[in-house]
């Protein structure tokens, strides 16, 4: 029989205001096994933990139930406290009387009754708990960073600087990401390439960093400390070891009609290409869909002109299998498709563009060589209209429900840059709210208004009409003047919502990392563990976790790196002892459990057993504790009930059911 102590937390008034904690203490004392019960203001505080330790010593407790907040919050705290007092940490159970009780109920009597029942269930479970010992697993001292934008580069640099090997997997032909497409950055207006390129070079030159560009993660198996990842290196058709990056192939390539991804399709590129001049690695790839050699078999110009003999039309995709201890996701974002927003005439006029497209137009290496001009006729614009919140803050299923966070600032930046360079251009911004929380952000926006004379109008645009003369008629409202405004513009720029790079879904599935309804990866805790995924060993860097600007991305990248370093610095990891275990005498050896195990943790052994005097050799399931993650799929598949899950055993769960239904 266990000797159980029950500790009821007030959580200040969070619990005590709705649950009569004294009553709970009184009621649980009647439960079997309970030899001690007390309440306290804050059980998780040092004084509270001391009370638990004292009771363990004084009453010789063998099990503990803490009635408090969610076990997701403080289970670890109380387990550690129990362990310090000499109790096996797995003899602790939590009754969640805050999130699942006091916070959602109003009636004190009802909430108290429920709290008692939840406590009873936990007590019934503890009665059947057994001490568990965590196992150990090794840590592969190498990290994988998925995505080679600024987030991925920064994370990789930080991990590498700490002395660990890092691989970056980037699906496009070059690292650099979205930041490489930007012209200037807010709120300092320094050139994006000037600050990014050195980091790209540093990453490429770092002896601890290996970069796989034009590559994708294909398969992930294993678990924290010991992931095995298949990386598909897509065929570049260029031998990276031979290529000197001279660029002659791109010049001579006769097929130059492919839309340039880097320039957002605003101009074209050759079939053999590097996305931009500062690309790393400076090794082109052949776009086989655009290449004449691949399409018709005739051409081969690049092969002829390449003095290094680097062109290799026979190159095949290659699968590289690597082991990693930690994985950082840094897959970044894209702008949403505007197909659902007919009213802004984006698909009708070349002069309605997204902000990211404007970045390319403003950039000296962009499609217009940095000259602000209409893409329809190349004319210099005189009236420009910016529309904010296109697809952001929408709850109508056309766009995204969240605020994309960066648009207010980059629009102020664009407006300012245009007014600075072309004082003859009038700039009007239609906004709903201007959101500028950030260091020097509001000052920046005010400068746009006060010093650069940008015309900010509070009100959304309802429609953009393409007039026969090629001009754009913008119909918006001015809510402060209570007027409807019709404005003729030469160019309209849409502050298009950003969304997580769509391929993140498959990556999340491979990593079994959870993802929210907007495809942003979920944090382990929204406030306290914002750079960790709930899946152990997987960390989050940059916009894949939520909208953020460059400084925030870099900060988070560093934080993710630190978390990864913390993991890689360990030689061994304690494994979760709540693993499956087969009862040798009951096991049929039928393989049903192995069929459902997602980790391949179950194997079979021919083993001699002594079944109540019958000695025979039987085929018996054996669980590898390092591989087993404790999901319990096998326990239900097992026909004989031989397979059970430690810490969540059949009898424990049934005891909880019984206690609740009593």
């Amino acid at each position, binding site marked *: 029989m266990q000797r159980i102590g029950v500790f009821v937390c007030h959580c200040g008034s969070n619990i005590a205001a709705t649950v009569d904690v004294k009553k709970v203490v009184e009621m649980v004392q009647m439960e079997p096994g309970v030899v001690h019960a007390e309440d306290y203001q804050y059980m998780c505080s040092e004084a509270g933990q001391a009370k638990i330790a004292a009771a363990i010593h004084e009453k010789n407790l063998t099990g503990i139930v803490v009635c408090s907040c969610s076990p997701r919050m403080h289970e670890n705290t109380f387990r550690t406290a129990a362990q310090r007092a000499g109790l096996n940490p797995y003899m602790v159970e939590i009754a969640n009387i805050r999130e699942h009780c006091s916070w959602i109920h109003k009636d004190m009597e009802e909430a108290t009754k429920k709290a008692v029942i939840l406590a009873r269930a936990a007590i019934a479970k503890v009665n059947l708990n057994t001490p568990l010992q965590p196992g150990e697993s090794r840590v592969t001292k190498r990290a994988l960073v998925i995505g080679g934008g600024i987030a991925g580069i920064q994370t990789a640099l930080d991990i590498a600087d700490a002395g660990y090997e890092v691989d970056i997997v980037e699906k496009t032909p070059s690292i650099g990401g979205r930041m490489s497409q930007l012209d200037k950055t807010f709120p300092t207006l320094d050139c994006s390439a000037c600050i990014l390129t050195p980091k790209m070079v540093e990453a490429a030159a770092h002896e601890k960093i290996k970069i796989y560009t034009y590559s994708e993660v294909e398969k992930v198996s294993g678990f924290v400390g010991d992931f095995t990842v298949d990386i598909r290196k897509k065929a570049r058709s260029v031998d990276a070891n031979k290529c000197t990056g001279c660029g002659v192939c791109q010049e001579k390539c006769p097929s130059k009609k492919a839309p340039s991804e880097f320039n957002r399709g605003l101009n074209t590129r050759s079939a053999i290409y590097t996305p931009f001049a500062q690309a790393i690695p400076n090794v082109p790839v052949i776009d086989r869909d655009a290449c004449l050699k691949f399409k018709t078999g005739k051409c081969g110009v690049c092969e002829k002109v390449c003095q290094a003999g680097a062109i290799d039309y026979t190159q095949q995709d290659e699968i590289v299998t690597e082991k990693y201890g930690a994985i950082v996701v840094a897959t970044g974002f894209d702008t949403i498709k505007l197909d659902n927003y007919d009213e802004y005439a984006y698909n009708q006029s070349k002069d309605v563009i997204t902000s990211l497209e404007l970045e390319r137009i403003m950039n000296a290496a962009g499609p217009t060589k940095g000259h602000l001009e209409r893409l329809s006729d190349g004319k210099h614009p005189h009236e420009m209209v910016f529309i904010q*919140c296109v697809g952001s803050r929408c709850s109508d299923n056309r766009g995204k429900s969240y605020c994309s966070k960066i648009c207010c600032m980059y629009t102020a930046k664009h407006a300012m840059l245009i007014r600075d360079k072309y004082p003859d251009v009038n700039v009007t911004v239609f906004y709903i709210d201007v959101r500028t929380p950030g260091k020097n952000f509001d000052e920046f926006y005010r400068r746009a208004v006060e010093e650069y004379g940008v015309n900010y109008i509070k009100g959304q645009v309802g*429609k953009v009409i393409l007039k026969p003369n090629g001009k754009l008629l913008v119909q918006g409202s001015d809510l402060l003047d209570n007027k409807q405004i019709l404005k003729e513009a030469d160019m309209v720029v849409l502050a298009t919502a950003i969304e997580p790079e769509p391929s993140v879904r498959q990556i999340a599935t491979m990593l079994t990392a959870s993802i929210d309804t907007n495809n942003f990866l979920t944090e382990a805790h929204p406030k306290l563990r914002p750079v960790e995924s709930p899946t152990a060993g997987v960390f989050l860097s940059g916009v894949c976790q939520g909208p953020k600007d460059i400084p925030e991305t870099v900060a988070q990248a560093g934080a993710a790196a630190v978390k990864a370093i913390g993991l890689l610095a360990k030689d061994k990891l304690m494994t979760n002892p709540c693993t499956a275990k087969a009862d040798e005498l009951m096991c049929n050896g039928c393989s049903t459990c192995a069929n459902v195990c997602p980790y391949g943790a179950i194997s079979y052994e021919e083993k001699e057993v002594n079944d109540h005097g019958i000695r025979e050799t039987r085929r018996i399931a054996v669980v590898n504790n390092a591989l087993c993650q404790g999901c319990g799929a096998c326990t239900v598949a097992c026909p004989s009930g031989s397979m059970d899950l430690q810490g969540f055993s059949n009898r424990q769960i049934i005891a909880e059911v019984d206690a609740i239904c009593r």
Partner: protein
Amino acid sequence: MSSAKNQAEKIKEISGVNPLKCMKCGKCSASCPAFNEMDIKPHQFVSYVQNGDIEALANSKSLWKCLSCFACVERCPRDVQPGKLIDAARQLVVRQKGQTGLAPEEIPELLDPELPQQLLVSAFRRYRR
């Protein structure tokens, strides 16, 4: 006061719209073809219902100037759909006045073949259901 509240509830019920979702972006007013004819603007409609000021709505010109083109309903990013609110307010007024409109069977003979379908439907929405 309580009856105004009651009426506001009725409007929400008829329209199936929650005016609290409005973020006051003004896209409705930006989209409205009858904006200049209206005394209470489409975006203001939402706050009138929110504030329970149904009396003013019922007496407004806007109620009868709205073309029911539903551009605001289509474009509202928050699914507040001011057009539906206007529609509902109009319903409320029509119901209070009693059966003063046309009956459906009276319509065919009044029809002008040149009349656009949309106008017909719009008229129905406004005057009789």
